[in-house]
């Protein structure tokens, strides 16, 4: 660590070196909402493909136009070739959008008979579970990642993470859902309806009937009946949910995986990034670096912000029509310098508390990105950052 008064410049995060490294098989982009995670994932995958990797990008919830630009007009849960990718270096790019319900159906089908799978799919509790339970999206994103990794078609998988309440949910939610599905509570809920609570009364301590009758009161008998049918149909799968979650979690810990934390120069986004970086390091997970998006920069004109404002004021007060334009340009320049200084300061603060995390800065673009050229342009900035 550098104890000096000024924050040391953090090590440079070389994105190209990362995607050129054939040992890297999985890249995960994570960070809080609104920082350009999905666009970054797509730009990384495209750049990797055009540098010779056989890449696939798994997106969770892309903006409509970005999805269209990659040919993802339908959500069919299968990777499709992206058109317009330069394959000269021998690479290719496939893209897919996660359909969590369908992925869940696939998991069920794989583990039980067609008859049982049909029963499960018709169960109201399963329908809620597979479409609206918190954590299902994260669980299924991990599940899909595991499936893609098991196929020989690609040598690089880029995963975008779901837009959760917290970036940590991507790591925690699958395990949470897995434990719930394999746990005591769901069996209790199922058993309550089946045996009117008596089965468990025998086994568990006294006073338990209060609990089961409370559950019935809170949730209603109908739900408990649904859960019970679900639990019965699912019997063959118990123990499997948690195990699957743990397997993908282990995959994420391997050195072939690289996490890229994406942030914008905003306090909230960087605070979230800090939490995530700390968590990765605590769990010994491979962090490649921080990608700081939309950083304002200003060229050196040798004119400081305050100097520019003072000069603009002088020109304006002289009420000389000839200098209205120059005064406006000086005010623009001052605004830009202020933004640049602020972004710099916020970035430095992160690096002071995380001096070992490599950082690359992507300058703010004037326009929005919604086609392959735009993604390419961002990819080219990885190098410059």
């Amino acid at each position, binding site marked *: 660590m550098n104890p000096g008064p000024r924050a040391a410049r953090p090590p440079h995060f070389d994105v190209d070196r990362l995607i050129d490294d054939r040992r890297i098989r999985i890249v995960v982009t994570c960070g809080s909402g609104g920082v350009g995670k999905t666009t970054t994932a797509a730009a990384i995958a495209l750049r990797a493909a055009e540098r010779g990797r056989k890449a696939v990008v798994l997106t969770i919830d892309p903006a409509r136009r970005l999805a269209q630009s990659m040919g993802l007009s339908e959500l069919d849960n299968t990777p499709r070739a992206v058109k317009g990718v330069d394959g000269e270096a021998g690479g290719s790019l496939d893209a897919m959008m996660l359909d969590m319900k369908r992925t869940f159906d696939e998991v069920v089908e794989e583990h039980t008979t067609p008859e049982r799978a049909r029963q499960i799919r018709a169960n109201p509790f399963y329908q809620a579970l597979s479409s609206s*339970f918190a954590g299902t999206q994260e669980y299924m994103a991990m599940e899909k990642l595991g499936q893609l990794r098991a196929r020989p078609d690609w040598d690089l998988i880029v995963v975008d993470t779901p837009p959760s309440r917290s970036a940590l949910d991507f790591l925690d939610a699958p395990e949470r859902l897995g434990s719930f599905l394999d746990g005591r509570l769901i069996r209790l809920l199922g058993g309550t309806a089946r045996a009117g609570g008596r089965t468990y009364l025998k086994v568990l301590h006294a006073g338990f009937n209060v609990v089961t009758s409370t559950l019935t009161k809170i949730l209603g008998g109908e739900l408990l009946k649904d859960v019970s049918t679900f639990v019965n149909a699912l019997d063959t799968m118990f123990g499997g949910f948690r195990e699957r979650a743990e397997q993908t979690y282990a995959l994420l810990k391997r050195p072939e995986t690289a996490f890229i934390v994406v942030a914008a120069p905003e306090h909230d986004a960087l605070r979230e990034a800090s939490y995530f970086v700390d968590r990765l390091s605590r769990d010994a997970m491979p962090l490649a670096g921080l990608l700081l998006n939309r950083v304002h920069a200003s060229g050196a004109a040798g004119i400081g912000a305050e100097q520019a404002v003072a000069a603009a004021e002088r020109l304006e007060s002289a009420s000389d029509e000839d200098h209205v334009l120059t005064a406006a340009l000086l005010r623009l320049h001052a605004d830009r310098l202020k933004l640049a200084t602020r972004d710099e300061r916020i970035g430095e603060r992160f690096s002071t508390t995380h001096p070992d995390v490599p950082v690359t800065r992507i300058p703010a673009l004037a326009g929005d990105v919604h086609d392959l050229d735009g993604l390419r342009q961002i990819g080219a900035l990885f190098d410059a950052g």
Partner: protein
Amino acid sequence: MGDWEGVRLHVVTGKGGTGKTTVAGALAMALAAGGRRVLVAEVEERQGLAQLFDVPPLSYEERRVASAPGGGEVYALAIDAREAMHEYLAMFYRLGRAGRALDKLGFVDFATTIAPGLRDVLLTGKAYEATRRRTADHHTYDAVVLDAPPTGRVVRFLDVTTSVSSLARVGPINRQANSITDLIHSPRTAVHVVTLLEDMPVQETADAVADLQAAHIPVGAVVVNQVRPPHLAARSLPAARRGRLDHEAVLAGLRAAGLPATDAVVALLTREAADHAERTALEKTQRALVDDLGRPVYELPRIADGIDPTALYELADALAEQGAV
């Protein structure tokens, strides 16, 4: 009188990164001005309000965080699903041991982190309770501002009956959800959407407005945040965009201001002006899309040095001037 007379619950949403927490804080401040009492609540465990008002982290307890001009008071609360669950169980079931057993079994975890909608019922339920709470013969709070989840999740968050009914079709949770639904679908609620004049936030705003309307949830205003000062006169924009500003005039201006007047400096300023003009053109297109939504629009200036309590007063003033309160 402002645009939202009679509204007791102001919900603020927006795409991530648009500054919805800041706007929620400024709105609370504006609503409290003139001696009223307003509660602003967050639900995502981010401690965004504590940062905003520059106070220690908030707990599940309403705390006074600021005074508004004219003797008003702003209270803040971080709604925590677990605490709300315990409060709920205690209120309805007077649970002692059974409550602890439920906790041990993982039921509270299930209800607060996994079950769809239950968490949202608990969170919106607390806001619902605050809007109805009375002290003596009047409402405890004149208004409640809810810093809600981002646009992508807000309809599901507010439309609690739909999400809960997939799980609990009868019972007390269902009844609780129904009372919340009544409030949220009534004219006593307004959902304001915060955006920036950029492609994706505006697109999400349009989607959210359409989704809210489809769900019959009253849409409030669209707040355009972080608006930059124009600086460059409209008539200069086309030339600026093409990088064809009057080189000699700028040189002369720099000389007159006593600044280094070199071609390099003019070139840099011209490039910055081109960027600015391009962004302005994009913003104009986006602004037209915002206007097409047919909602009242408020603009808030970009605060270059970052948000602090002083800046919050400024933003609250801007909202008041534009008729928000």
